[in-house]
């Protein structure tokens, strides 16, 4: 077989594989009428194969989470020490270990963690340490739902992976609160958001054009200047939404940037390996008619 037929055969294989993979990628559920808007792009620095997180943005995003969101939304799967992992908001390149990072120790100390007295067994609250999880605002899921009109605020630990196009979705949602469209029957305790999933057809008069989006139990949580950033960035709603979306995207998968960087090395190795092996293959098969 000549090089041309080799390559043709390989191309056919790759096309077929790509077709199958493309099918898998495209196999999203069908969209019903009146579907939510496609999320707006937050222009995030971490998108793409070479993207990285902006540490300043992550620090601002953490502040927004801690001061605004954490009063209702838990991040049960996050520990304070994770904030000091390489690529994280408070990583310092001289730290002995993430748990010894000075910023993380200070941040953890600000949190009050429920524990028991080591001698009497009585429940008490103590200062947090880096090894502790983020404290949950509610003692249990039932209390969370009861305090929020029956709908518990979802945990945000992996929220960027739990929604399609997560970071952009979170950014869009937080900036997507708009005036209630004409004729939309509001349900009590609900707010209208352009980017929320749902079907508003039952809540519009017969025959009227159904607006995109759906009802969300959370009222608009952000207002200008709500948080004072330490780096003096202007805390507009747009800025805070971007920052907290970036922070949540990092928290959902703290190792993603390291993984992409390792991936680059692996791909280079694999291409070289493929080249060497192909040459070996040709050498072995040289002159053999097949």
């Amino acid at each position, binding site marked *: 077989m000549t090089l041309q037929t080799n390559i043709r055969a390989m191309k056919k294989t790759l096309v077929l594989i790509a077709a199958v993979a493309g099918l898998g990628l495209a196999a999203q559920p069908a969209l019903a009428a009146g579907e939510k808007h496609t999320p707006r792009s937050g222009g995030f620095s971490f998108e793409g194969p070479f993207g990285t997180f902006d540490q300043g943005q992550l620090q601002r995003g953490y502040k927004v989470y801690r001061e605004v969101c954490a009063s209702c939304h838990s991040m049960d799967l996050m520990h304070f020490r994770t904030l000091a992992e390489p690529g994280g908001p408070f990583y310092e390149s001289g730290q002995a270990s993430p748990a010894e990072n000075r910023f993380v120790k200070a941040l953890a100390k600000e949190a009050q963690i429920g524990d028991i007295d080591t001698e009497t067994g009585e429940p008490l609250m103590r200062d947090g340490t880096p090894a502790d999880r983020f404290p949950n605002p509610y003692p249990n899921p039932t209390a969370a739902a009861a305090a929020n009109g029956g709908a518990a605020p979802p945990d945000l630990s992996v929220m960027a992976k739990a929604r399609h196009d997560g970071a952009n979705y979170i950014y869009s949602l937080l900036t997507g609160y708009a005036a209630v469209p004409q004729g939309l029957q509001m349900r009590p305790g609900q707010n209208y958001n352009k980017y929320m999933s749902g079907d508003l057809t039952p809540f519009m008069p017969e025959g009227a054009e159904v607006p995109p989006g759906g009802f969300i139990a959370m009222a608009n949580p952000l207002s200008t200047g709500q948080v004072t950033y330490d780096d003096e960035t202007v805390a507009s709603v747009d800025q805070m939404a971007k920052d907290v979306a970036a922070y949540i995207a990092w928290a959902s998968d703290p190792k993603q940037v390291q993984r992409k960087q390792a991936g680059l090395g692996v791909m280079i190795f694999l291409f070289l390996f493929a080249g*060497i*092996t192909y040459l070996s293959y040709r050498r*072995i098969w040289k*002159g053999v*008619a097949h």
Partner: protein
Amino acid sequence: MAESVETENGEGGDASRRDFIHIAAGAAAVGAGAMLVWPLINSMNPAADTLALASIEFDMSKVQEGQQVVIKWQGKPVFVRYRTPREIQEAVVAPMSALKDPQADGDRIKAGHQQYLVLLGNCTHLGCIPTFGAGDFGGWFCPCHGSHYDTSGRIRKGPAPTNLVVPEYAYLSDTRIKIG
């Protein structure tokens, strides 16, 4: 090993095993294998949450004179003992020749805090937890195979080979230590 293959132009079937390109491909394959296996093995090393619990702090004022408190650190018991002056004296004057594992008492405490002993609570023989205050030397006695430790935690009699281990610890203040 390969049979010679009939080909149309009579060459190429018996590719030389020593061709550089084959060695290179083989080496790359070994490299790839190592790159695949290493993360699997490394994943069994202690994870980040295990490493984070590597240090704990303890308030010494919880220990009464002549008593000990047992705390758990890295899954093991730690004895924190407040020695009486008599116990300290016994530990200091003991001759090195009487010790199976010679070590001065001064090397087993922190300067200025010689009343406190911080020791790993596992017998150095096979790991049982010695009982406080028992045995012939006033320190500890291990009930499993009869090892006697003195008031500095050093082995005096019995099958244990070495003294009770002093873990890495430091005083953060007069009443607070950090272990690990």
